[in-house]
């Protein structure tokens, strides 16, 4: 057993690549390693695109209008990771016309969703879903690192 106890809370690192901690109630344990976001971005996707801030991302490529490729610095272990996406609104009022999602290939083929990269596309849902650049694109990534 390899544990560190701080005020009754136990960090258990008995298994390689796993660090667990007793839960808020103390009745369960939670996996610290799995619970950490492994990457996140705050991207200005307009003009000369720029990462405002990020974690574990080596860069973002502006593929074309509304389409971006995000390169993960330390790769994920597999392609089974999870992402949460957030967007900024459009100028004036409660207008959320710009929506970003993960970009797959045709026919529900997620071949471009890899351990090292994933692609995003932003569409203007108020304009027949044309591809548009987004000024605030946020993504968090959860899963296992390689």
């Amino acid at each position, binding site marked *: 057993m390899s544990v560190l106890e701080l005020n009754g809370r136990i960090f258990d690192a008995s298994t390689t690549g796993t660090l667990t901690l007793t839960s808020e109630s103390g009745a369960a344990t939670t996996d610290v390693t799995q619970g*950490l976001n492994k990457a996140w971005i705050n991207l200005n996707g307009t003009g000369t695109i720029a990462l405002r801030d990020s974690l574990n991302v080596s860069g973002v490529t502006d593929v074309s209008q509304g389409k971006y490729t995000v390169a993960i610095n*330390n790769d994920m272990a597999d392609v089974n990771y999870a992402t949460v996406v957030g967007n900024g609104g459009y100028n004036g009022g409660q207008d959320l016309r710009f929506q970003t999602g993960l970009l797959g290939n045709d026919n529900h083929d997620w071949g471009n969703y890899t351990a090292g990269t994933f692609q995003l596309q932003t569409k203007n849902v108020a304009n027949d879903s044309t591809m548009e650049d987004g000024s605030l694109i946020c993504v968090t990534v959860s899963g*296992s*690192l*390689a």
Partner: protein
Amino acid sequence: MSTLVTNTITGLSTAANITIGSTPVVSASANSLTIRGEGSAQTSVQQGLLKAWSNLDGSSFGVNDSFNLASATDDGTGDYGLNFSNNMANTNYSGGGLGGHDSGSYTRIQGVDHDHGLTTAQFQINTQDTNGNAGDMEPTLTVVAGDLA
């Protein structure tokens, strides 16, 4: 099991490094802590942790549960303010959200209110239906990642 009672653990080979089992824990600089990930790479604990999250009922309005949220405000249909307890370090933080409406298959989307943007102390979110009309979201699930002040 033996118990070691101490205030500070300092690495023997490298002062900033200790290992729990086979998990290296590294504090290379002040306020920085990394641990070994699932594989061989190190990952930042502070940067990887969510700094706030909320489960908000945007219809009858109330915060069901949250982390690092001092309060939430109902500022109109599909218009909510989320106020941090401990502020963020800057306005470059990240996050996202999802939710729905009622028990049917009504989709709602959420985003950051353009007119308010992100501030270190709070951010304003808007929710709407897929036709672009403002609408309350229940539940409104939101996460925030980034740097704390």
